[in-house]
């Protein structure tokens, strides 16, 4: 089974991943992705009926914090790498019309 990745799919994945590729890059990426998906499809050879999907290898559970304030005001450190800041806040392009 060969996966052909359409232009529409590349466009859609670009919206999801917030990536904008040049036409050339897009072509190469589509070919790579098709090839990888063909390879991923190998997994379908395996019968996994009744197998629980395993997210965590270890049965660790209930890792909980007590509800105690441990952080103080660290604004300068939080903002020190901001590409743009104003009045103690991060600046972004306007999000409403």
């Amino acid at each position, binding site marked *: 089974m060969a996966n052909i990745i359409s232009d529409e799919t590349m466009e859609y994945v670009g919206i999801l*991943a917030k*990536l904008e590729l040049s036409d050339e890059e897009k072509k190469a990426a589509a070919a790579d992705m098709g090839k990888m998906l063909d390879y991923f499809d*190998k*997994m*379908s050879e*395996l019968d*996994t009926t009744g197998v629980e999907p395993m997210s965590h*290898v270890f049965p660790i559970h209930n890792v909980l914090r007590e509800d105690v304030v441990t952080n103080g005001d660290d604004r300068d450190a939080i903002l020190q*790498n901001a590409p743009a800041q104003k009045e103690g806040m*991060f600046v972004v392009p306007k999000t409403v019309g």
Partner: protein
Amino acid sequence: MDLLTMTATQLAAAIKEKKVTVSEAVQAVLAQIEKTEALYHCYITVDKEKALERAKEVQKKIDAGELSGPLAGVPVAIKDNLCTEGLLTTCGSKMLGNFVPAYSAQAVKNLEEAGAVLIGKTNMDEFAMGSTTETSFFGVTKNPVNPEYVPGGSSGGSAAAVAAGECFFALGSDTGGSIRQPASFCGVVGMKPTYGTVSRYGLVAYASSLDQIGPLCKDVTDCATILEVLATHDEKDSTSLNRNDTDFTAALVEDVKGMKIGIPKDYFGEGLDPEVKAAILKAAEVLQEKGAIVEEFDLSLTEYAVPAYYTIATAEASSNLERFDGVKYGYRTPDYLGLHNMYKKTRSEGFGAEVKRRIMLGSFVLSSGYYDAYYLKALRVKALIKKAFDEAFAKYDVILGPVAPTTAPKLGESLSDPLKMYLGDIYTISVNLAGLPAMSIPCGKDEKGLPIGLQLIGDCYKEKNLIRAAYTYERAVAADVCANTEADGNGKGEV
């Protein structure tokens, strides 16, 4: 006395005995960097001044008896995806080319508390995605064994820095072999501990369920010693294990009598370089001679590990790397029209080709209509792989095999075919899927003189089995070298 030939623990002992000062050790490393760094390019950042300053502080503490651990005063290099307070942390990416964290990774803090002196941050494949260190935005690192070859990756800078004497040991991270494979290519020792043994707090995530920090170092004693310092329970990492068996140096015992070692036939099939194969089987013989019970077995499912691994890793990566958007830190495109255009341009310009490839693939396998077929399927395959290992470890204490199908490839020869590159990870990635500990130790060289790595895989929490086997092997080979040296007097022994 050539300081640089010492191991980390030997150096710490010499400092403790006042044969060497911390400043001398740091200066020796800085001099070596001065000499060889232009060729190898192991580091993205070298923090000379801070290292010298810190050397004095540590020396004071050692003199005052406040620091007496086995790493006190030892210069260390840190992979550039581990956050270091006040020191550039780039992940080998243009995206984080100017990122200076306000906090240090817990693993880094543990080393600092033990008195290690941070020299700098090592080069790596961008966001740890790659196996050659060629995807770094900051240029390639060359293999100190032979600079025409890659050092492996993604912790290539760390492995090369250890091999070149540009540090005494280094930290790396291993998501699918990123410690073990460069260790193998550069002829150093590397270990990926059991998932959860070292806190991931402050490690810039590639694939959270697979990432684990570990040491790259000169010998097995160093490896056990460093791991002992790194392995602490961390309440800031929900996946951190609370172990009470982290006295790894207790396993530095030269004895494998009765140890059951399994050799998976699946790891010796098509694609394995005959020279690598021969070296691995020879290493198995050494352990057998030392009293281990070695036999072949069928591990099964190896061929499904690569697709399962890349499905899970790219899916997690696509989500983990969403935070790099030009808002809070790192690169932001200079020209944009509105928010979404800013996002797209920032990410398209900030990430390199391999990272973008993996993000797109990961976004796709999680997208509506494909989640079950790819992502959930991969998690089911992972469960089966884990089960296969459980069955193997019911019979064997250690699984022995190659780290990589070949020795280091030449620079520039790997990136053209991603699938082929991904297949190079075939022996290392199952370990990450199953959360197991595994080590790479040098076991000879091919005829080009490139190092070959022996991989030892243990059951969860069984690092000590690996350390014991690796230590026994290391001693046996060293004894052999001594014997040969005495016999023919030219000391051209391996390792």
